[in-house]
């Protein structure tokens, strides 16, 4: 598509009335650094977001603010991992998002940890039930043998606990690493947005080109 064709689609893009193929073409064009189209988009986006001011204003329910304040204290992971698809398909600045690969999802497997714990519990129960079974004539050898087995079981339990601890530490490190990378990606994205804003500022200082202010909204 020619520049003019793409520029003509900007008002439709701003109001969300562009077919997927045209939308992608315009986004690619914007990413290529077309300043006129980007300026035009900002102007028309300002128009689009002014539309709700025409609506009859209805206040939100009185309890909503308190509900939101309470919801802020809920753990982050509970809500965000519960419904990852809740993210809208087109948020502000979203047209840059395909620059970034999908964030790695943290799905640590606790299955084997659970298996280990169950194995240990089962071993202990078996050992205890066997140990507590009636022994009418316990000999010294038998007692010694049982004591040895108890020590061995204890040692195994200790080993398993150690393995569990190591595994938990490993998972914790992995989580931290993932979180760090997600933060880095967010920072890179912010930097790109900042560059975008700087580009706009630079453009506004170009004398021959008339820029249009977009103070609201």
């Amino acid at each position: 598509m020619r520049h003019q064709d793409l520029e003509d689609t900007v008002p439709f893009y701003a109001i969300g009335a562009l077919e997927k193929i045209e939308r992608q073409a315009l986004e690619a064009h914007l990413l290529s650094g077309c300043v006129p189209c980007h300026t035009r988009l900002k102007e028309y986006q300002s128009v689009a977001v002014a539309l709700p001011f025409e609506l009859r204003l209805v206040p939100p329910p009185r309890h909503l603010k308190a509900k939101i304040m309470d919801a802020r204290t809920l753990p982050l992971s509970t809500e965000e991992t519960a419904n990852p698809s809740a993210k809208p398909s087109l948020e502000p600045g979203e047209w840059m998002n395909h620059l970034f690969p999908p964030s790695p999802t943290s799905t640590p497997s606790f299955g084997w940890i659970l298996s280990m714990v169950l194995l240990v519990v089962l071993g202990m129960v078996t050992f205890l039930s066997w140990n507590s079974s009636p022994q009418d004539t316990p000999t010294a050898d038998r007692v010694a043998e049982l004591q040895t087995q108890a020590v061995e079981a204890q040692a195994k339990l200790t080993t398993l606990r150690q393995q569990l601890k190591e595994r938990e530490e490993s998972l914790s490190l992995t989580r931290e690493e993932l979180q760090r990378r997600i933060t880095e990606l967010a920072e890179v994205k912010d930097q790109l947005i900042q560059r975008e804003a700087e580009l706009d500022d630079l453009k506004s200082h170009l004398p021959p080109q008339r820029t249009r202010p977009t103070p609201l909204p």
Partner: protein
Amino acid sequence: MDTAAQHAASTIDPKAAIRAGKGDDQAFNQLYDQSSTVLFSLALRILGSREEAADILQEVYVDIWKRAVRYDVGRGTPIAWLITLTRSRAIERLRASDPQLRRQTTLTEGTDHTAIPRKFESPADQALRTVISKTLEDLPKTHRQAIELAYYEGLLPAEIATRLDLPLDAVMTRLKLGMSQLHESLHTYWEQDLSA
């Protein structure tokens, strides 16, 4: 409405929006007070249900607090960012809803909600409302309908053509002319506002 809520949604301080996303409780409260009525009205217009609209608002504000979404000056004014965020989430929920329900929502929209008297609006928001309302009123009916179906129902031109029983080209023309007229009116208003 309390005093803070009387401040204009259209003049939210960008610094306050940034602080709200960084855990500043006072800034977050201010952001809510200044923006919640416009955002709720928008979500209600799209979804037609107070409960659904309240859900959307809760999702948006909690995501801001938890930094799942972040305001940046490169994204326009705070209210522009909030409106875009709220609209896209409400439209997504509308698309995911039952088509029959969607139709009912459209038919019953705006019938039983208690509106805020205009005297409680801030002067800045009132001025913007006057400009946008006047421009929309001046548009031919089908131009306005096409814009509203696109913006508040998330319909594509082909879907609007079906809904309005018009050729696709006619819908494209109406959308383009309508947006162009709105752009012109608002641009003039903003230039006057800046010069004043």
